């Protein structure tokens, strides 16, 4: 087999696959953040906690109720999404008129509460979730576990469906219109507050869906979303929150960049995304796909 700059291809492609998987999660999560921010003007710090809740919901369904992965894939996001709707109705909707900072602080506090409660109940060491599609294929240049391939494809489909839903359907058109000018949309007889609630539920459900997909790859643990959400913030700063497609491309792209860094200069793999963020801020402060506002 050929070698690239002295790197064995197994290592290279293995890390690229890992990067692609991480990128899939960055894309799904930053997408949800962007959609929520567009409608609610709130940066949802609880996103990481809701991702964790998705994974936990699937794990609890499996271990207690014997509900298989494929059912949990639908059920868990619904449950967590409903939880999100309750949060929006009870807390978030009361602070829309305030500065963005308060939404940030409120959701940060909520994340602490949720993650603290899960940690208290189930500890911080993770629980394994069996892979729903065990086995894999030898592609010659690398070994591809089937489930990991599935996650990349599924994430891509989820992202594209979300993009289609927002950019090409009637519901999406209402959503975009209400983001631009809520008062006018209300004058047309559309229930904007309900639209906002639904959007938050959708965004939260998306985070939970990512969590369910992550469960068989990572350990299901109370703190699995803590560091992730911070990386996703950097992804959002890099991509800019103006464009749905931008979030998707940036998410996958940065995952790949991280994977490549792991191959060529491992010590920097944790920090490379933040370095990219610094460079983007220097060159194009509004973000790669952002509009200056």
């Amino acid at each position, binding site marked *: 087999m050929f070698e690239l700059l002295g790197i064995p291809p197994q290592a290279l492609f293995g890390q690229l696959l890992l990067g692609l998987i991480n990128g899939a999660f960055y894309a799904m999560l930053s997408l949800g953040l962007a959609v929520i921010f567009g409608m609610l003007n709130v940066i949802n710090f609880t996103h990481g906690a809701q991702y964790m809740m998705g994974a936990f919901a699937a794990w609890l369904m499996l271990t207690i109720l014997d509900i298989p992965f494929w059912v949990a894939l639908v059920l868990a996001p619904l449950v967590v999404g409903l939880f999100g709707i309750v949060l929006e109705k009870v807390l978030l909707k009361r602070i829309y008129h305030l500065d963005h900072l308060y939404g940030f602080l409120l959701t940060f506090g909520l994340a*602490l509460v949720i993650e603290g409660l899960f940690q208290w109940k189930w500890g911080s060491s993770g629980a394994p979730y069996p892979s729903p599609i065990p086995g894999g294929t030898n592609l010659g240049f690398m070994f591809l576990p089937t489930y990991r391939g599935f996650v990349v494809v599924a994430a891509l489909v989820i992202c594209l469906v979300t993009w289609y839903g927002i950019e090409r359907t009637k519901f999406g058109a209402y959503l975009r219109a209400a983001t631009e000018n809520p008062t006018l949309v209300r004058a047309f007889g559309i229930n904007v507050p309900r639209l906002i609630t639904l959007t938050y539920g959708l965004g939260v459900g998306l985070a939970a869906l990512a969590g369910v997909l992550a469960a068989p790859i990572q350990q299901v643990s109370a703190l699995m979303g803590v560091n992730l959400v911070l990386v996703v913030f950097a992804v959002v700063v890099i991509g800019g929150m103006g464009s749905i497609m931008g979030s998707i491309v940036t998410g996958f792209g940065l995952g790949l960049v991280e994977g490549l860094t792991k191959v060529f200069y491992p010590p920097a793999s944790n920090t490379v995304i933040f370095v990219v963020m610094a460079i983007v801020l220097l060159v194009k*402060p509004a973000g790669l796909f952002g509009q200056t506002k």
Partner: protein
Amino acid sequence: MTAQRVIGVVLLAAALVAPWFAYPIFLMTALCFALFACAFNLLLGYVGLMSFGHAMFFGIAGYFFGHVVKAWGMAPELGILAGVAGAAALGAVTGALAIRRQGIYFAMITLAFAQMIYFFCIQAPFTGGEDGLQGIARRPLLGGLLPTKDDRVLYYVVLAIFLFGYGTIYRIIHSPFGQVLKAIRDNEQRAVSLGYEADRYKLLAFVLSAALAGLAGATKAMVLQFATLTDVSAAMSGEVVLMALVGGLGTIIGPVVGAFIIITMQNYLAAAGEFVLVIQGAIFVVIVMAFRKGLVGELTDWWKSRRSAG
């Protein structure tokens, strides 16, 4: 005015006799966090910039202090200087990048940089990784004139450092420079149109705040004799926000009150483990929903309304 002065004198007197009534280490820790919270509040309360990564300055200064004193065997004064200088330099770099975006993005960018510094501190050779720097010897200050082995002696040193930091912030806020900062906070466009280069003012305020946070971090390392990853973590960044918020943003004494409340709470709840986080989170929620002015802010309002009514 006079009422404020009376309260100030009473507080100062209380601070002077405090080590005979309370555990000095606790008081010193609380003073360090109070200074840290004041430094943070200088940015949020008076420039309107929310840094959600202030732990990076606090924590890195602790490491600088530890390295200078432990590995190089130098005097603690130099360690504190190194901590302040290191935090200020880091503040200049991250601040220059972060002020390129506004509002909520600014918070996310500072948070991301702090996370980057956190990962850096896990791997860097001089930080001791997961172990941190432990057993930093307490050397005497002023070239041997001031023994610091006695906690009560050290307490007055820390009190002096705190008062120096607090005084600096007071001077900044009440200077013409501080007036410009407030003008930028209230309406950046207007300040720019009046000819002030808002970005330069913001950057200078950011560096000052970082340096003061560094002063607090280095002093804490001197008191507790260790520097750890906890002090650079995102949780610590959140904690200082909480302290300022509990006490009252934009009030100069608020963050001090908030820091004492939160540190006291942590002291009493140390056994509760994970539940400390839950309680802190719940306090965040309650304050944002109901008491956005914080303790000092709400009390001042109540006092004012009482006086105008009576």
